[in-house]
Structures are given as structure tokens and as C-alpha cells.
């Protein structure tokens, strides 16, 4: 998808507020509401390789289509999600928010830097890198058509990921 120059200036503060909202929902573990921020055919992708071209010919730390996203979120509500017997809590900091343009579907391409602290019991993990959101406007608010999170250490060995970041 080629970005073309947007025809109107963007309200960067509104875009930031939306990204901060997404982060707040994740940090508060309000995953169902987080899912509601995405379109019905959205995908959520954390590539495993730097500059990974697609999630189909190479594996990913996470590649979820909409069904996989729902599976992931609904799993928190099951009574025996052992990996979350001790809950993971996150804290996101979003910065460097920029609008890169619009794609041919009219979605805004927004990039941001995102750092996440992940705490589970005594363990504390730092994750971070660059997020690329494709945002559509529906009924006056933003919806996420896709989210891509390029972690700075994507190709390092990792312990498991249980919560969306």
C-alpha cells in the first residue's frame, strides 16, 4: 500500500489521545474494550524479524487475525489460564507520534514509539519499539484496521507473551 500525502492536516492531539486510550485499556487489562477499538477484519502483528515483509512466509512473535485476537482475549476469562494465575500488569508510554500518510483505503498510517513495562510477580520485563497503526474513522471515532509492533529486540530469545502489548 503506497502512502500518499494527506489532503488535510491531521489533528495530532486526537490521534495521540486515541493511542493513549488504547494503552490505558491494555494497562487496565480491559481487553474486551481494547478489542472493540479494532475493525471486524483487523489484525495485530508483532513481527519476529526486523523489517519482516509479511506474516505468511515467516513466523511472528504474534500474528493474530480477528479470530485469533478474540481467542487471545477470551482466554483471559477462562478459569484455568495457568500462565495468568499471577496476572501480568503493563505500563505503556507512547511517544514520537507521527502521521506518515494515508493508504489507498483511506486509513491513516500512524507511527509511534512505544515502551512497555511488563510485571508478573517478581519479574519485570522491558519491551519496546515502533508501532504502526492503520486508523479508519467510523462514526466520528477512530478504529484500528491493523496494529504492527516492531520490537527493538524482535529477533532475541524471548520468554512467552501472554498479554497483548
Amino acid at each position, binding site marked *: 500500500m503506497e502512502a500518499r500525502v494527506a489532503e488535510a492536516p491531521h489533528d495530532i492531539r486526537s490521534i495521540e489521545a486515541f493511542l493513549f486510550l488504547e494503552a490505558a485499556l491494555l494497562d487496565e487489562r480491559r481487553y474486551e474494550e481494547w478489542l472493540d477499538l479494532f475493525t471486524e477484519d483487523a*489484525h495485530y502483528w508483532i513481527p519476529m524479524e526486523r523489517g519482516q515483509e509479511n*506474516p505468511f512466509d515467516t*513466523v511472528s*512473535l504474534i500474528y493474530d487475525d480477528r479470530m485469533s485476537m*478474540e481467542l487471545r482475549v477470551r482466554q483471559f476469562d477462562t478459569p484455568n489460564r495457568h500462565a495468568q494465575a499471577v496476572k501480568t500488569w503493563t505500563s505503556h508510554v507512547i511517544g514520537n507520534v507521527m502521521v506518515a500518510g494515508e493508504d489507498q483505503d483511506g486509513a491513516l498510517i500512524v507511527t509511534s514509539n512505544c515502551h512497555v513495562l511488563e510485571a508478573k510477580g517478581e519479574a519485570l520485563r522491558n519491551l519496546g519499539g515502533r508501532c504502526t497503526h492503520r486508523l479508519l474513522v467510523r462514526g466520528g471515532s477512530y478504529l484500528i484496521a491493523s496494529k504492527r509492533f516492531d520490537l527493538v529486540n524482535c529477533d532475541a530469545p524471548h*520468554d*512467552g507473551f501472554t498479554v497483548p502489548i
Partner: protein
Amino acid sequence: MNAHDIGDLVEATRVHRRVYADPDIFELEMERLFGRAWLFVGHESQVKAPGDFFTTFMGRQPVVVVRHQDGNVYVLNNRCGHRGTQVVGEAAGNADNFTCCYHGWMYRTDGSLRSVPLGQGYASDFDLDDPARGMVRVPRVDSYRGFLFASLAEDGPGLDDFLGYMTTSFDDMVDRAPDGELEVAGGIFKHTYDGNWKLVLENWCDGLHPNFVHISSVDTARGQSADTHTDGSGEIARRQMLQNGASLDFWENDCGLWTFPGGHCYIGDYHDDEKLVATRKDPEFAEYIGLLESAHGAERAEEILAVGRWNSNIYPNCSFMSQFRSLRIIHPIAPDRTQINVLLFKMKGAPEKMFLDTVRFANVTNGTGSPVLTDDLETYARISGGMESQGSDWIDVSRAMEQDQPFDHGGSHSPNGTSEIHIRNMFSAWREYMTDGGARG
């Protein structure tokens, strides 16, 4: 610690917790087990052209796997003969020679020392051709149908003897390719967990744990609406998560375990048409079957697809499964810390969609963000925690022991897929390696 002490840690029905938790035992494992057995190091397709190389570990020894100009694959200790610096810093690449960053010693890709700057400054009897001055070669390297193994021990059973009947598990995977060859592709997962290296081998042939460890992913998959949009990834995820919800009756009475000398094993009688039927209805799978039939005829193609093995473990360091063509390599780091690297394979001659499914399957079951794997990782961490307890020193491994039966090729069989026969078999091999130096059988 003498052989008697070590031997006492393994009994017929139970093993002492020290085998999982004791740092001295771990060091001995690195020396006597990982230091002697044939270890899987990679696949020939990772080093296709002369000069192609990648780095990996044998136990904790850093090595370089490289295709030399003579066409052979060498496994070299990644260590300069001068002052011990790691010579190769990259994960993979192609090189005519390997040059040490410290003082410029240059090695050919068979590990021999080619040149040394200001060589006259070293000892007067300095010999470039002395193998000890080179990147010392791992003494034994061999391959079976493209799967590369190496051994740090100069002597011992050959690879074919070591693998024994488990060559049929490799055959199962390779024969599924219409062109009869596999190729590594799709990236390498690297995930770590807080647990002993032996735990994964036990888990991968454990038919009882899915109903308990994976219950949350099974329940989630059962409740998933089929109307939700999917590009195929979610559908594969849902299907694979459901498979862990097979009834206890299936695990106990339908599938079984086969074990062999040396600690190897596989779960068998696992696939049947009901599991494959979703794929068999898929037009791209039908295309794949057509290609297999063109290559081998309908009868042989059916025979190939009918082999119903799930995970096959090659003790001590790898496990693979043929239906989606993935292989996991075990890298021990510490008694309670392990890294697993996952290789995926493309089948030469098969439609692209088959590899697409390989990638999707890997994401959902082996991936760092897997809804399935993450509950296994949690379990391993709790095992490590439990091993600290002095409440009891013994780990019971006797489940379904009365159902153990002899099998051909020196092996044993349990008709009960929830048996711990594979654990008993691994510890039997473990004790041989750890006490009398690795005699097999």
C-alpha cells in the same frame, strides 16, 4: 560424585529431584550426555553453498556449522586456537575464510589454520598444520536424509546405530514432500523458559497433560464463534487448540507410545482421518495429495499420509513432528533455564499453501505468543519452583508401567498414550550415559 551415587538417583518407578535441580548433576550432563551423544545441529539446506555457515550450540559448546569447498559439512568449535576468542560473531552467512577479530588468525572453512599475521613472533616450532591450532573440528559429523548430527566424542555408535528405528520418523517427515526433500524456511523461533531441559522432552510425548495444562485454550476454542473474520490464521489456531481437547479416552486408549534404546520415543496412532479431514477437504490439500500421488502412486501416497505419529523425540536434544513439519532443538543453559529453537520445513514440490499452514501452526503452538505454549512454559516454571521443596525428594514416573510391552527393534510400547513409559526410557538412557559412558542398548 561417583557412578554409584548417580545411579541411585534413578529407580524403576521414580527419580530423585536432584536430576532436575542439582547444578553438579547438570555439569555432568553437559560432559557425559551432551558431550557424547549425537546432537542435532541443523539441516543441510541451511548450508547449501560452499562457505555457507551458521552458529549454534552443542550443549553449551559454541560451534560453527559450515559447508566447505570439498562439499562436506564441518562442525567447528567456535574458538580461536590462539587465545580462545570466538572467531565467528555472526549468526549466519557465507565466508571464504573465518578471521579472528583479535589478532587476525585466519582459518579455512574446514577449520584448518591458513595464516597468522607476524607468525615469526610465535614459538619456533609453531606449526600451521597442527589441528590443535585450528578451529578444532567436532570429531564426528553425519547426516540422515538432510538432518545434520554431530558428536563431541571421538568414539561411539555411528549415527545410524544411534537413531535405530527412529530413522522411520525422519522418513515420515521427508517422504511427505512430493520431491522427497525438505528445506528450512520461515525463520527460527527462539524461546526460553525457567526449567530444566528434560522437561520439554517429557512434555512433548505426554498424552495426559493437554486436558489439564491446555484446558483454557481448549475452552476458548470451543466457545469461539465461527462467524468471526479470519484470513486462515485464526481458523488454524482454533482447530489446533481444539485438538488438545481430545477426550482422555482417546489419549489413553487410541494413541500410544513407542520407545527405543538411547532414550528416543514417539507418540503414534495419533492422526486419523477425523483430524486430517478438515485439511483433506481443503482444495489446496487435495492438490498436494495429487502431487504426492503423481510422484509415488496412489497406494504409496496413502501409505505415507497414513503414518500417524505426533512428536518424535531424539534424545537428548531434538523433537519434531511431520504433520506440520517443525523441529525443536533443545539448548540447555542452566539446571532451571533452557532455550528452544524451532526450525520449520518447506516440502519441495508441494503447493505454497502447505508452508503457509506450517507457519500458522508454528505461530499457534510453538510461537512466543502461543495461547497453547504459554501454559506449558508456566508449568515448567512451577516445576522448577516445586523442585526447591524438600517435602519429598522423589518424582514418580510409574504411570501405566504394568502396560509396558516389548516392541521390535529393541524397543518398548505402551498402548496407553498417557503412560510415562517415555520418561522411564529417557532416564534409563540417562543413567547409562551418566554412569558408564554412553553405551547404548
